[in-house]
């Protein structure tokens, strides 16, 4: 008796592709957005930033050094 419901498992309709995430990999805009951004992120970082942080580090007031 309780085996009756077995074939209902396959009853769920498949989700429509692309509707879940409008900026996902199925979307041309989504793909381009990531390509645009990844290119910016992978750009070489100029030395000035590491130098800046070192300067900030060195110019810290030595008040708490004990």
């Amino acid at each position, binding site marked *: 008796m309780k085996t009756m419901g077995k074939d209902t498992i396959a009853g769920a309709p498949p989700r429509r592709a692309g509707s879940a995430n409008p900026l996902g990999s199925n979307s041309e805009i989504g793909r*381009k*957005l990531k390509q645009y*951004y990844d290119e910016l992120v992978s750009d070489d970082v100029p030395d000035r930033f590491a130098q800046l942080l070192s300067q900030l580090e060195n110019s*810290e007031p030595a008040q708490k050094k004990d």
Partner: protein
Amino acid sequence: MSVSPRFKTDLLGSIPSLRAFAVSLTQNSDKADDLVQETLVKAWDKHESFQPGTNLKAWLFTILRNEFYSQMRKRGREVQDSEGIMTSRLAVHPAQHGQLDLKDFRGALEQLPEDQREAIILIGASGFSYEEAAEICGCAVGTIKSRVSRARTKLQDILKISGEDEYGPDAISSQVMGSSAA
């Protein structure tokens, strides 16, 4: 309290993301780097207000964004209007053969209002959740959602991509169809 070495290392590690976000906002790499520099100095000065264990990237993006808008206000918007926005506007043309050129995409992105551009970048590229993006922009989650949606519609419009949800990866046929059903 002095700045911990860990904080400094984490700052260094977030520079590539900060620069990408800054370029997205300013559309100008020199201005972007100045903005990142300001952000790092500010972050360093107020490092004590950062709570370890929370999202440093989101904290830094918030600082950068605030700095960008306060500079914009000071300069009366010449920040982006003085740059080649008009020329890039002319340079945008419809994608061909379903292959959207990155240059065209960049040009289209430039045409978005800042609030829409930053929203779609934060959500679609920087990997923030809607909640995080709302916090960074100091607005409601629903506002971010509607900005992203408007940005996406506008980009599709500018780039002449129609109903891409329907076509998925098979964008070629939608280009061939041209002005098919809205």
